């Protein structure tokens, strides 16, 4: 948490309103937040507090109604669709609750997807994707399709896909929401491992069990940041070791 570094994310007065006919929904009412390189932030808050809206804005999937957003020093708050797509491609990796892998497409090809749109040549694409799959512990599963993989393995493929472009920031919206507790721990272990190697991670969760692995916790309430505090992270690896071994371990083999 080197405060002297240039921030990866800097948002000021971020407002996002949704217009539902006559009614204006104030999803974000002015959020200021700065994320430094190497942070592992958990965004928490009740359902409807604006977590996903905030994630979509920081992930450049959406544009704010008002406010400023500097990503890696570049003002992206006014950019149009195709420019945002290019920025997502270069700077952001997404991990979703529902994995969002392309069906009937191999793990390798799923991981290659960002490189495909980034215009990376075939052999380079292959090499980097294989490397990322190995890094998430899926060596040997390159040619499996999503239906041939367990939930935890699918999420690992998604994490590999998020990493393959060397992004400045990995955004994970409830990445453990569809996983059982043991698999959740394994995914958190993997994310902590990546973070320890310098990857900046912003994770959305409503589960305190998950947020305890983050190094900073930001609490949203009613479209605003209600609490923002550093946190001493628990090691997911340690928790896993303390767990009784399970016969039905989907990451074995």
């Amino acid at each position: 948490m080197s405060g002297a570094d240039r921030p990866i994310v800097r948002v000021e007065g971020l407002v996002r309103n949704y217009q539902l006919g006559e009614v204006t929904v104030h999803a974000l009412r002015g959020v200021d937040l700065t994320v430094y390189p190497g942070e592992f932030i958990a965004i928490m808050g009740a359902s409807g507090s604006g977590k996903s809206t905030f994630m979509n804005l920081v992930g450049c999937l959406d544009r704010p109604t008002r406010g400023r957003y500097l990503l890696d020093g570049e003002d992206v708050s006014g950019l149009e669709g195709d420019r945002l797509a290019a920025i997502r491609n270069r700077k952001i990796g997404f991990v979703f609750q529902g994995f969002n892998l392309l069906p009937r497409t191999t793990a390798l090809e799923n991981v290659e997807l960002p490189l495909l749109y980034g215009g990376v040549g075939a052999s380079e694409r292959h090499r980097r994707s294989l490397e990322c799959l190995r890094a998430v512990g899926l060596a040997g599963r390159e040619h499996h399709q999503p239906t041939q993989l367990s939930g935890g393995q699918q999420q690992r493929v998604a994490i590999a896909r998020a990493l393959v472009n060397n992004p400045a920031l990995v955004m994970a919206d409830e990445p453990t929401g569809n996983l059982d507790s043991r698999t959740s721990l394994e995914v958190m272990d993997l994310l902590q491992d990546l973070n320890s190697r310098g990857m900046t991670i912003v994770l959305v969760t409503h589960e305190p069990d998950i947020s305890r692995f983050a190094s900073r916790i930001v609490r949203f309430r009613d479209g605003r940041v209600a609490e923002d505090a550093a946190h001493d992270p628990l090691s997911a690896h340690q928790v896993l070791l303390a767990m009784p071994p399970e016969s039905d371990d989907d990451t074995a083999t």
Partner: protein
Amino acid sequence: MDTLVLVRVAARSLAQRKLRSFLAALGLVVGVASVVTMVSAGQAAKAQVSRQIEGLGTNLLLVTPGAVVGSGVRSGAGGKLNLSLTDVEAIRGDCPSAAVACPTVRASVPLAYANRNWSAMIQGCSPEYLQIRSWSLASGAPFGAEAVRSASKVCLLGQAVAERLFPDEDAVGKSVRIRKLIFRVLGVLEEKGQSASGQDQDDIVLAPFTTVQRAIRGVTYIDSILVSAVAPDRIEAAREEIQAVLRRRHKLASGGPDDFTVRSQSELGEMANQAASIMTLLLGGIASVSLLVGGIGIMNIMLVTVTERTREIGVRMAVGARGRDIMLQFLAEAVTICLLGGLPGAALGWLGAAGVASSFGWPMVLEAKSFALALGFSTATGVFFGIYPAWRASRLDPVEALRYE
């Protein structure tokens, strides 16, 4: 994304929905097959028309009085009725490239036999006329040189005339009344059908030109001279010889304009060809309705596909696909379906056209052009009907798309 990747992505996505892609492609098979059938059949019909025209004698030249100036308007036509039998004889004698020359004099006349009446064109000619037109008789015998010399009142009836006046008896040997005169029917011509220009060639009466000149028209000149060249490649030579002979005979100053016109049958053939082209276009137009229906099927499938794959589109956008990447992906898919249907459709269509042609006895030519046409049609259909669904896909909002269930 490069084209190869695009095609691979499209092919895989189609392979994942085999039955549906097959059914959508089937619509294109039918559409392209019918277009290719119609267009190829039209081309075969055209080839048949030119073959018929050649059969009628591309060697044919027609000499008419009066000159044709640049715009095709005849100058000095009205007064100058200056072709005569001696002109015909000069052509016969002095044009080595002309095989046969025949004078013609025409009139439209009322005909009567018993209580039946009809009206038709009477064509005054010499015995060579049948040879020049390659017409033959269904029954009876032609008139000879003697009948011409003596201006006999004899005639040959076209099929249509014979059927009108002699619906249930043999015309040969009977006497018909033409104007106030009695003509003996020597023979009946074989049925010939319409000419290339659409005239009923069976609605005609042939008689010695001398008879038509004196007894019917009361003139000494002739309307036109029909000449056949000794060979197709001698047509131009024959034209020049005829021009030289007639200019000499008409005592035209050198450098001045002709006072007659020589036209070849191939000039008329071109007109017929044009008509056949229009027919081809028309048939193709009708057939493209089924291509349109096939195209609408493609559009429908693509719209369903885009909706079903909203989440996939969201994922692609999240990892950096731009609007045009998504657009190209779905366009490539639509075009791929169209080509998958279009190529077998073209083959089927060609078989269909070959069937039509063989049942009519038309010549069938396998043209690479028609396959290129089918390919072009398929691609164009894919692009035309795929563009809207692809555009819809490209315009999806990534957040909405990712949330889509």
